[in-house]
């Protein structure tokens, strides 16, 4: 009974928030509603027995996406309240199309759920083979062992997004949150203690998420997102400044994940005969090394995407 109440409240909240996100009168309200929508999605993942996803959605979907959206909102601020042109599609027609799309989606979903499936879908196979692996977390097992190609390509997509953003980037002065340390303004008193407390805590949490990801919910993506949040925090408090070009170390760190993963996979090719397998008995340490490299690359890529710059340098 209580479960039904909780699910209904979550679902109603999701629907209302999504509606607000697309049609609230002011853009700022839309953005804030979307961030809360991300948090509600995180709760839904927890309800649907997907704790890894709940962690990832809270860190990436609500947190980082929210920071990106608010930063973009600030950059477009001059133009929001102007009268916007009328859409090319009239509202009743758009409503009709939306209802038809939702119906088509619902029919597809119903077919997906009720058609008797394959005898042993990939997931059941994966769960059955979990004992052969060195890791206990099935999602990590799928990500890094059974479907390692997908994860490798995902890193490529992340890097590609950063390259694309660099190509269309604005000049550095206009990009990202501006330095609020303008002359005449003192830094708020509570910022330094906040950083003193949060920076070690975030590093600890990221390390724990990475380590625990092999046997409990967690993993490289969640840890990388938490580290990226650290980068965002340092950028916003002025502890690091954006720079136009990436230094050699930053470029090395950006491709580190892709490189280490490919090398580990090539090693497997030498030992086991196919790419992205791991030499027997070595898989646990190799997975840990690969995940660490992934975490660092993901963190730097996401932090640079937020900052809109080629690099981040410490100090004043």
């Amino acid at each position: 009974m209580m479960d039904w109440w909780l699910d209904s409240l979550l679902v109603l909240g999701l629907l209302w928030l999504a509606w607000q996100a697309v049609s609230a009168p002011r853009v700022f309200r839309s953005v804030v509603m979307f961030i809360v929508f991300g948090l509600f999605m995180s709760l839904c993942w927890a309800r649907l027995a997907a704790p890894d996803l709940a962690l990832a959605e809270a860190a990436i979907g609500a947190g980082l996406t929210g920071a990106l959206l608010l930063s973009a909102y600030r950059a477009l601020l001059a133009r929001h309240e102007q009268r916007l042109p009328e859409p090319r599609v009239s509202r009743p027609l758009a409503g009709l199309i939306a209802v038809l799309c939702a119906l088509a989606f619902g029919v597809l979903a119903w077919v997906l759920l009720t058609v008797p499936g394959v005898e042993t879908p990939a997931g059941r196979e994966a769960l059955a083979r979990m004992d052969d692996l060195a890791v206990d977390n099935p999602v990590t097992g799928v990500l890094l062992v059974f479907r390692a190609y997908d994860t490798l390509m995902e890193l490529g997509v992340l890097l590609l997004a950063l390259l694309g953003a660099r190509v269309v980037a604005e000049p550095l002065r206009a990009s990202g949150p501006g330095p609020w340390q303008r002359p005449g303004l003192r830094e708020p008193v509570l910022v330094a203690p906040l950083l003193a407390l949060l920076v070690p805590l975030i590093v600890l949490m990221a390390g724990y998420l990475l380590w625990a990801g092999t046997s409990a919910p967690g993993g490289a993506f969640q840890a990388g997102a938490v580290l990226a949040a650290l980068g965002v925090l340092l950028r916003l408090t002025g502890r690091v400044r954006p720079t136009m070009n990436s230094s050699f170390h930053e470029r090395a760190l950006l491709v580190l994940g892709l490189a280490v993963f490919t090398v580990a996979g090539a090693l497997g090719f030498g030992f086991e005969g196919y790419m992205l397998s791991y030499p027997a008995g070595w898989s646990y340490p190799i997975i840990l090394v690969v995940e660490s490299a992934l975490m660092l690359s993901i963190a730097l890529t996401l932090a640079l995407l937020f900052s809109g710059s080629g690099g981040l340098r410490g100090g004043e």
Partner: protein
Amino acid sequence: MDQVLLYVLTAAALFGIGVYGLLVQTHLLRRILAVNVIGNAVFLLLIAWAVRDGQPPDPVPHAMVLTGIVIAVSATAFALALLRRYHRDTGCVSLEGREDEGG
């Protein structure tokens, strides 16, 4: 109604809301939000499907949606970079009205 059915219906409704927003809104930031809502609707369907028969949840859709979340944030970041550049070059925040301005 059981939990999976409830979430699947919600996913369909979210999909419809996202499509409506994409068609009707002209402010590009709102369109990016609408596309993200559509993406989340599809993820919700995948995860609801993963717990459909009460056994331990299927890890392959979980891994796919985790990949999807990371790719969604990269695509959003790229779209926002494009939007900022577009705004900087033209001063507009929507695609529609541009032909009337005479370039």
